[in-house]
């Protein structure tokens, strides 16, 4: 790790501790074993805010916010692959970066162990929806910046949804929009809570993230962690698919609205 530090960058202190407040102390002493969902029901996902076209130099971009998950996504391309052999199909590159201030602990501004698996998961969610056969010799580059992270599952789901919106914003031909939703199995009940926050997914027995093309009814990616029975897994997939359909409305509405706004400004 010592070799990988960038000496030109002004680094933060080696170690730091969050300030301890009186309220925190009280909370810790009476820490409940399970977080309770009081604000939303187990079937509910966090409200979504989505907007396209915020990053002007990119070919397409999207910003998604679901309460405390905030992600910006930029798409460049399709552009010519440099210094590589001929490829019949286009290439999809996904790069996920966490902002140093995105998590509860400061993240060093360089690649670490978590970024790559998340990139691969998001790439897998998108791959079946992109018509790569139309882009020989080209690459599509997706850069995802996590500005605030509230649970890895929510991050993957929101990131994949935003990336799909950004691809559509870039005018890249898609078979359908891809949307993602996550679920967690909590307690021995068992209860299934959709779209878990970081706190909830830590308390969960198992989590599942599902990517889905609602327009075609096709699953593109299923990512499961932890322990869950086949029956629970099936329930998770079903519930996620149902919410993905709702998220699809949000994404397509956003895209159509932004298209309408562009059309509206030239009568």
């Amino acid at each position, binding site marked *: 790790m010592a070799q990988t530090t960038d000496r030109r960058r002004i680094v933060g202190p080696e170690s730091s501790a969050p300030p301890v407040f009186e309220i925190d102390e009280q909370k810790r002493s009476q820490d409940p074993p399970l977080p309770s969902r009081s604000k939303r029901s187990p079937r509910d996902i966090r409200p979504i805010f989505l907007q396209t076209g915020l990053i002007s130099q990119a070919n397409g971009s999207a910003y998604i916010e679901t309460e405390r998950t905030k992600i910006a996504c930029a798409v460049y391309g399709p552009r010519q692959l440099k210094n590589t052999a001929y490829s019949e199909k286009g290439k999809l590159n996904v790069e996920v970066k966490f902002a140093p201030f995105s998590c509860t602990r400061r993240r060093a501004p360089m690649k670490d162990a978590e970024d790559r698996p998340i990139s691969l998961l998001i790439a897998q969610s998108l791959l079946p929806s992109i018509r790569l056969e139309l882009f020989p010799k080209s690459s599509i580059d997706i850069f995802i910046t996590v500005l605030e992270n509230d649970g890895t599952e929510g991050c993957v789901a929101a990131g994949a949804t935003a990336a799909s919106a950004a691809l559509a914003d870039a005018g890249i031909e898609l078979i359908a*929009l891809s949307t993602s939703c996550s679920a967690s199995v909590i307690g021995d009940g068992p209860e299934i809570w959709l779209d878990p926050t970081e706190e909830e997914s830590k308390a969960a027995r198992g989590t599942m993230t599902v990517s889905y093309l609602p327009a075609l009814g096709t699953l593109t990616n299923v990512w499961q962690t932890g322990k869950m029975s086949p029956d629970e897994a099936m329930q998770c997939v079903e519930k996620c698919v149902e919410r993905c359909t709702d998220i699809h409305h949000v994404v397509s509405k956003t895209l159509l609205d932004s298209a309408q706004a562009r059309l509206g400004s030239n009568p």
Partner: protein
Amino acid sequence: MFTIVSPAPRGDDLEYTTTRHHPSVKDEIDMDIEEQGGEFGEGPSRLASPGETITSAQAFMRGHGTYVENEDLVSALTGTIERVNKLVSVRALKSRYNPEVGDLVVGRITEVGPRRWKVDANARQDAVLMLSSINLPGGVQRRKLESDELQMRNFFEEGDLLVAEVQAFFADGAMSLHTRSLKYGKLRNGHLVMVPPALVRRLKSHFYALPCGVDLILGLNGYIWVSKHVKQSEQEGEEGFDAEAVYSNKNDDIDVATRTAIARVSNIIRALARHSTPLTDVLLVEAYDWAIDQDISVKDLSAEETSEAMVAAITFRA
């Protein structure tokens, strides 16, 4: 901007309306298309998002931006649906340039290779300019020689801007350009402005001389060249082709008034592009006159309020 809060929990038996329509609804959509009488362009244009079923594939043919799934014609892009007779296509509002043979493009050399140049022309792949498809020095049309291959950088170097025509396509879809006309070739004495390719329409001519002493080349790939006006006779040259002048890297002397005019036209183009206004010479002349009338400095043209006022004024007039 809008926020959508997840809907309240519903019963399991409730069906959600997805973009997959029930057959009866689908029929109505088909009817809508019929009623519009083949003119998607009239009235508010219909928009589609990826994965949305447009119509049945049996009655219509799939065009660009669409594909066929289970006998349905499905959109692959976000944009306006267009129809020519039975051909239905979706045009994205913002995308890379889709070249067609005969298009005029402005590009930048990115690489010098064996007997060819690679040109960035805002397309999915770099365009190719073959040594055999440029005008070689020596007056008459002649075949390329080995000596030409060795001094390719004398014609075009990395970073040079050029105007060319799309000649053909390679098997992988890359476009091949040619500059075998006196109108085409290296660009100098000016300024490149990049706009979305959708804003430049196919016109009778893409070369314009504006009355303010500025020449304009509207590349269909969204690259626009704004330069000092060159007289027609000088452009042609006496012997038809003067290699030294055509491949020169030196700018002519440009006086302050012309420089200001170039900057003003560039800023007007950028302002119009920000408001997604399709570019024509008439519109640009009007905008230029408006800017002069209102006594707006070049710098202020890029301000948001000014550009809004300008777009409102000229589209109202037109």
